[in-house]
């Protein structure tokens, strides 16, 4: 186990990074380490933990704005929002079923990994709701981007650049999120379909309707089920599910899942529980255009799959081998999409491209941008790409 630095504030983070930069010593950056198993292992003698930078620093429910330090546990934020009837819009997952552990994820880790749940399909990803960020670059210099208002196009959008950069461009110390009221009621229709392709057609019909479907997943199995969610005021949920039911009947038998059942179903989907990954399995997340989802499942030929985002997010699980990975990469590439090796034993993660290669133009830009943000190459080196 490597040595862990856990500064108490942003100045401490800045000093720790500056010292590491001066010494040319890489740092593994983490919140509480719940996603340590994601992507490639970082070779670093020291870990910089943000866990002590914790707490909500600003919450203005009427302005739909919440700021918190990067190490704040996400459940703490969700609880504060729930007290005022609000929520994190992108419905981010915890993924304890996949990564194990009992620690809560932190806000900074959530933003650095840009993980979003089922509501992403209509309400946007984490990256869409990061309104402001404070961070420390690879020389220990503090910078901000965005702010604490909902509309801001001043300067380059480094909030988006850092979101999903897995800590390789800066150490996030504080985040401001746009938040929204949580819906009064949830309701779901489950359509039993003959095959996955029909299931995606049912999801497309729902997502292409005027009813504001806020979740659209496909649970594989002998009798696959396409599930479509409405979250609204109670009157609207009843009305919209009624209209959707008429539109979906042609795809298969339709069953209604009411409020509590609907919430529980989508909690599970958000956590990828229906995937049923074995403890030994590797897990992939593939993103493609929705109609290509069933083809990816077939081409990958792995034993377990779950589709969300209208069919466009394909969770796959199967033997943790280079051969499985090759098939997933080929399937994602053939569908013009993107993949992430989400969980795998460390030797496999270290040996394989865990993300798609980018073309030479983007690879060149990536190097130049890393040189701007982290000239000594000490922030999570190797986490996203080898070398």
């Amino acid at each position, binding site marked *: 186990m490597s040595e862990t630095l856990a500064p108490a504030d942003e100045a401490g983070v800045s000093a720790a990074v500056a010292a590491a930069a001066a010494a040319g010593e890489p740092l593994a950056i983490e919140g509480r380490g719940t996603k340590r198993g994601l992507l490639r292992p970082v070779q670093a003698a020291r870990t910089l933990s943000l866990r002590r930078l914790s707490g909500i620093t600003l919450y*203005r*429910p*009427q*302005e739909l*704005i919440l700021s918190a330090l990067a190490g704040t546990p996400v459940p703490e934020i969700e609880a504060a929002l729930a007290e*005022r*009837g609000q929520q994190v819009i992108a419905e981010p997952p915890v993924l304890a079923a996949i990564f194990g552990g009992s620690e809560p994820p932190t806000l900074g880790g959530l933003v650095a990994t840009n993980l*979003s749940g089922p509501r*992403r399909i209509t309400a*946007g*990803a984490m*990256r869409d709701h990061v309104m402001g960020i404070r961070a420390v*670059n690879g020389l220990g*210099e503090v910078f*901000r*981007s965005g*702010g*604490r*208002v*909902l*509309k*801001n*196009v*001043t*300067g*380059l*959008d*480094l*909030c*988006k*650049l850092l*979101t*999903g*950069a897995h800590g390789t*461009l800066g150490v996030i110390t504080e985040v401001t999120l746009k938040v929204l*009221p949580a819906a*009064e009621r949830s309701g779901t229709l489950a359509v039993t379909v003959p095959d996955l392709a029909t299931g995606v057609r049912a999801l*497309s019909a729902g997502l*292409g*309707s*005027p009813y504001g479907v806020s979740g659209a997943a496909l649970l594989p199995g002998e009798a696959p089920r396409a599930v479509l969610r409405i979250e609204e*005021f109670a*009157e609207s949920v009843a*009305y919209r599910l009624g209209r959707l039911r008429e539109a979906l009947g042609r795809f298969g038998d339709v069953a209604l899942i009411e409020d509590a059942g609907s919430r529980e179903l989508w909690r599970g989907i958000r956590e990828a529980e229906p995937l049923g990954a074995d403890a030994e399995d590797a897990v992939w997340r593939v*993103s*493609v*255009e*929705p*109609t290509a989802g069933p083809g990816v499942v077939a081409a990958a030929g792995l034993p377990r799959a779950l589709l969300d985002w209208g069919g466009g997010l394909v969770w796959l699980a199967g033997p943790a081998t280079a051969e499985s990975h090759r098939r997933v990469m080929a399937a994602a590439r053939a569908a013009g*999409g*993107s993949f992430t090796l989400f969980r795998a034993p460390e030797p496999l993660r270290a040996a394989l491209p865990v993300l798609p290669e*980018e*073309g030479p*133009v*983007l690879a060149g*830009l990536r190097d*130049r*941008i890393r*040189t701007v*943000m982290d000239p000594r190459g000490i922030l999570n080196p190797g986490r996203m790409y080898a070398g």
Partner: protein
Amino acid sequence: MIDLPAPKPDVMARRDEILAGLQAVLPGDGIIVEPARVKPYETDGLSAYRQPPLAVALPRTTEEVAAILAFCHRNGVRVVPRGAGTSLSGGALPLADSVVLGLMRMNRILEVDYANRLAVVEAGVTNLGITNHVAADGFFYAPDPSSQLACMIGGNVNMNSGGAHCLKYGVTANNLLGLKGVTIEGEVFEVGGRHLDAAGYDWLGLLTGSEGQLAVITEVTVRILHAAEGQRAMLAAFRANEVAGQAVDAIIASGIIPVALEFMDRPAIHACEAFAGAGYPLDAEAMLIIEVEGSTEEQDMLLGRLKEICERFDPISLKVAETAEQSLAIWKGRKGAFGAVGRISPDYLCMDGTIPTGQLPFVLKRIGEMSASYGLQVANIFHAGDGNLHPLIMFDANDPKSFHDAEQFGADILTLCVEVGGCLTGEHGVGVEKRDLMTVQFTPFELDQMRALKTAFDPEWLLNPAKVFPLKDNPGLRQAA
């Protein structure tokens, strides 16, 4: 006139050679050099600033864009990308030694895919052109800037434009899937695709709102949505800005996020009413237009709740539209706001800051005081849900002092926006207009880091230079000169 960097002497000296070279790259009608035909490109929506460029290039394909950029890069020629030229911040203002690269001939809709809810379009397709193309099938492209009849998707991407309905549907950045672009070296690349959340750095997010600083965008893959069953508006007028602000807070606290929540102050109400005769209450200090969506019953339910909330704040006037026609009547004045202000004063500056919504009463009070001390009228239109404030400052362009005062007044307002926790621009971009105010919002280091990111894309600072970043002590431009 705003300061622009001195033309590069080598480029000016080789003018004829460069023009001939451009014509060889784009033979036929692709290069415009005659002064009379260049003239329409000398300014944009911020027409107080004008500067004819060296030439205008109007490519029809990504390959032609790449060829022009490669040529300009080889010859050290500055390039100003341009869509429809509706920028209100001077983002498309040419430089004397620049080639304006106009995307308007790339105006084809390449593909519409309803099952995947996306459209692939060239950069010169207009914003409304996308919606018009899919409207018969019930779909639309959500971001709807007031300029949507003219402005182009490539311009929208580069400005990250918003619209009246972005409280519900988000701004441009939230409605994109992929881009095709060309670097200043003339290399073609693609980011994102037809899927959500491509793994890797968020190139799509970085390029969106980059104001032509990083690359030229030639193709855009946008998300399209099915329109709601219907929409209807209501109007609520109050005795004081504070009271209208409290009503907005109460609406958001109730859990209702209307699709639009527009605020007008007294001068804006009066200007719009005189112009459009929409029946706005002239005794009100502040007025809200609130729009909801859904089936007729859902609209009734939401408008009923909103009416109840507004009634708690002792409104002077409360009108809930019963029909689509009544709804249009409520919007009529607001939609004509620019024309209305234009009738009072032929010249006005449209400012664009964002403030925390709770600061609205204070900010309006301060703007009122500034208006008195500058002796210039101002009308305020405010996207109340998201804090985006548009003060329209009226001045007389024939009087240099009046213009100078208007600019100074605008700068004071934007500085105030930053002081109360907001920002310089919510949707119109920095352009040339606000570039020298960037030091109000950002530290020198933050600006340096952003400049270094631009340099990573454009090492010689040839792409739309003299915009976004303060001109003074700009290392990128010194290097280029």
